[in-house]
């Protein structure tokens, strides 16, 4: 099918297009130079802006953890449900919607690629089953490798290349996309009821430290030439004073960077940017982190913005989730995933009038505004930890308009307001910068060559929003912007119009992206390894890997490793 989007204001940061009136031609699911004008279906976008389809670098949408969250929270489904229509399936859930609803809601906001960031390798099959059931978007998943016993053992012995081979094997076996590290060392320690509190604490039984794990896996990432960097959830997350740990973490891989390319992505950075000694004195550490990031180019961040709402927190960081349970007294789930990782879930309500929550809200925005280069910080809520992804239009409004921020500031806790840096920040992101933080930057950080831009040959994932930048001043008319980003005028996925005016027109399956890492010398699957599977895992080696036919639509990306 051919498609011609005419006369829209195009924002395509990867190709340097900033609001120019252009035509976009689409043929067979790709962006092309031109199409047959008479035959092609035409969309008149003369009053609209055109952006590449949105890319979300970090959102928990599938897997055992998310599903346990659904089971834990019947009250979350109760009020938010979508009836079945002629083309879409019914679904429920506000902070943890069912898979189909997740896909539809992303598509309605113009998102077309999303990344599920924490997949315990043991639960990979479950995760892929749910991802296959998430329609409308392309998706990928990051396996949790930071506390896998194999990694810990090889790093302890300093065998980086050997470690890289096993990581490659694991990424292939779980059909993963990047190396995810959560609270390195802490999850293994949690198996013994402990945690680590600094980068140089010893991990019990493995004689290694979080610093060695981070540096080791960072080197592994380089050896394997993976498109994304290591995706890191820092130690001490969610503790007052942890901005120092975050800075230390960024510093510890400084020397591994080459050619100004990032080597580390610190995810939901807001949760790692608390200054102060305890919860009463907690303050924003955003300025320190922003200063560091402004001066260095080896790290990218995402916001992890907090929304004042009732949500469900879920991470692989078991000890942190337990702390959160102790703080909130809410119902909770905590789980140790055999030799690999841990997990926890606690429902949580962020309140405007709570000092700490209001400070957290402020930190996320401060980070996004104080870091000058939008290619270094991306917009997320760490769905559903900071709030559901459906709040993205709200965050866009806060970023794009000082007025919107002031309005929200007036409603938060007074002490937090007086300590917030936001009143001193005048910066308002332009639509171009919004396109960077919501799609182009994320696609670039993920190394997705065909996503996040509208150049010739790119995947025809396009989002069209009803804003006329010539007549609308986004900073004053932030409500128009918010409305436009909430309901995309058109979402085009692989060249097909899937959403029009916020209504789902057709149900399409998205592909599951995974890395086919080709190393010259693959990992040696010895009898010893199989024996360890038999002894330490509940799943036998033969049943462990996810085969390609397990994915509904498979989209492998071949990577040539240097080992």
């Amino acid at each position, binding site marked *: 099918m051919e498609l011609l989007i005419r006369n829209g204001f195009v924002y395509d940061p990867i190709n340097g297009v900033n609001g120019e009136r252009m035509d976009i031609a689409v043929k067979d699911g790709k962006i092309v130079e031109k199409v047959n004008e008479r035959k092609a279906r035409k969309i008149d976008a003369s009053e609209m802006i055109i952006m590449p389809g949105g890319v979300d670098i970090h959102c928990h949408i599938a897997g055992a953890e998310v599903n346990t969250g659904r089971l834990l*929270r*019947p*009250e*979350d489904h*109760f009020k938010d449900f979508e009836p079945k229509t002629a083309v879409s399936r019914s679904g429920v859930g506000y902070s943890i919607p069912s898979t189909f609803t997740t896909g539809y809601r992303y598509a309605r906001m113009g998102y077309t690629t999303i990344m599920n960031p924490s997949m315990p390798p043991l639960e990979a099959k479950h995760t892929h089953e749910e991802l296959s059931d998430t329609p409308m978007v392309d998706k990928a998943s990051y396996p949790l490798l930071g506390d896998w016993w194999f990694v810990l053992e090889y790093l302890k012995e300093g065998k980086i290349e050997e470690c890289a081979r096993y990581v490659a094997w694991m990424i292939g076996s779980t059909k993963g996309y990047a190396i995810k590290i959560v609270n390195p060392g802490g999850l293994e320690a949690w198996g013994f009821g402990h945690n680590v509190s600094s980068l140089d604490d010893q991990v019990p039984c493995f004689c290694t430290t979080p610093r060695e794990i981070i540096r080791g896996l960072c080197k592994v990432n380089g050896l394997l030439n993976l498109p994304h960097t290591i995706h890191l959830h820092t130690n001490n997350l969610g503790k007052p004073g942890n901005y120092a740990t975050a800075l230390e973490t960024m510093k510890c891989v400084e020397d591994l960077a080459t050619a100004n390319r990032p080597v580390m992505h610190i995810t939901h950075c807001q949760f790692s940017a608390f200054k102060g000694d305890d919860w009463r004195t907690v303050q924003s550490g955003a300025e320190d982190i922003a200063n560091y990031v402004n001066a260095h180019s080896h790290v990218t961040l995402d916001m992890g913005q907090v929304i004042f709402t009732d949500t469900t927190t879920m991470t692989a960081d078991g000890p942190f989730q337990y702390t959160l349970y102790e703080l909130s007294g809410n119902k909770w789930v905590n789980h140790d995933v055999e030799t690999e990782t841990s997990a926890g879930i606690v429902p949580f309500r962020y309140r405007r009038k709570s000092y700490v929550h209001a400070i957290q809200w402020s930190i996320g925005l401060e980070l996004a505004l104080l870091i000058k280069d939008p290619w270094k910080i991306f917009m997320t809520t760490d769905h559903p930890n900071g709030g559901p992804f459906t709040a993205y239009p709200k965050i866009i409004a806060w970023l794009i308009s000082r007025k919107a921020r002031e309005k929200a500031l007036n409603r938060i806790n007074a002490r937090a307001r007086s300590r917030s840096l936001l009143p001193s920040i005048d910066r308002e992101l332009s639509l171009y910068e919004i396109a960077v933080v919501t799609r182009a930057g994320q696609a670039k950080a993920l190394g997705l060559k065909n996503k996040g831009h509208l150049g010739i040959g790119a995947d025809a994932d396009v989002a069209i929003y009803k804003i006329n930048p010539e007549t609308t001043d986004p900073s004053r008319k932030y409500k128009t912007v918010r409305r436009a980003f909430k309901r995309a005028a058109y979402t085009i996925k692989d060249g097909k119009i899937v959403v029009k005016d916020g209504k789902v027109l057709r149900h399409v399956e998205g592909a599951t992206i995974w890395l086919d890492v080709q190393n010259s010398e693959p990992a040696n699957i010895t009898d010893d390894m199989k024996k360890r599977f038999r002894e330490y895992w509940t799943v036998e080696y033969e049943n462990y890997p996810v085969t390609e036919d397990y994915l509904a639509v498979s989209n492998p990306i071949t990577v040539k490793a240097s080992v």
Partner: protein
Amino acid sequence: MITLYPLREFKHPIIAECINPSVFSGRTSQEIEKLLVWEGNRQKTLGELFKVEEDKTADTRTIITIKGNVSRVRRIGMEMKGGEIVIHGDVGMHLGEEMKDGRIIVHGNAGGWAGSMMKGGTIEIHGNAGDYLAAPYRGCSIGMQGGRIIVYGDVGSEAGAHMKSGIIKIYGCAGQFAGFRMCDGTVYVQKDAESRIGACMTGGKIVVGGFLESVLPTFTIDTVRPKVKVEEGETVEGPLYLFLGDLTEHGEGKLFVSKEKNPHLQSYEKYL
């Protein structure tokens, strides 16, 4: 004043949160007929299910009267902020869910979850009420936060679960687990109550005027009181045993049980 008559006997559950004085006020009867409701999995208008009659002589438009059996209609008066609903007949689940103010009077029986998570206002039920009176939806731990519920008949299980504030008066009998996990507020049961009353309560007051099968072993006897005040102007004459609990939750809830009606609890007196 608006009067609604069901046009037929309903077979499928109907979700009608629009039957609400806050929604009706300012709308003509033609507009009210066009409000959307769900019958089973079909969306319909209110006019397809009810005859809407507007009484123009009475100028208080915020009174809604329902005449007929609406026991399959759910969420009537959901989140209402004022006005009055009078129902002559039985009513379905989730009556007055999260209501903030106003009055609902039922001359009949109410289904489960009546006054669920309510924040203010009054609900009077002249018949029986179902399970989960004033209790939040499953999984949610924020129960009734204010207001009054008066039931003249019996109620089912878990009345007043997770209650945070307000008062529930039951002039009949109560089922199991009344006051489950309540942390404040008052539950008064004039007649008998089934067992496991006040399980996991951390605060608040439960008064049982009739027979109580047994007190949970995690409650400890405190004193015998001559009388207890239920609310302003209503006192229950004793003597009554006062139990404190639930100790598994380090609770400080008060459970008053009539001494006269419960001779089998006399053995507790030796711990006084």
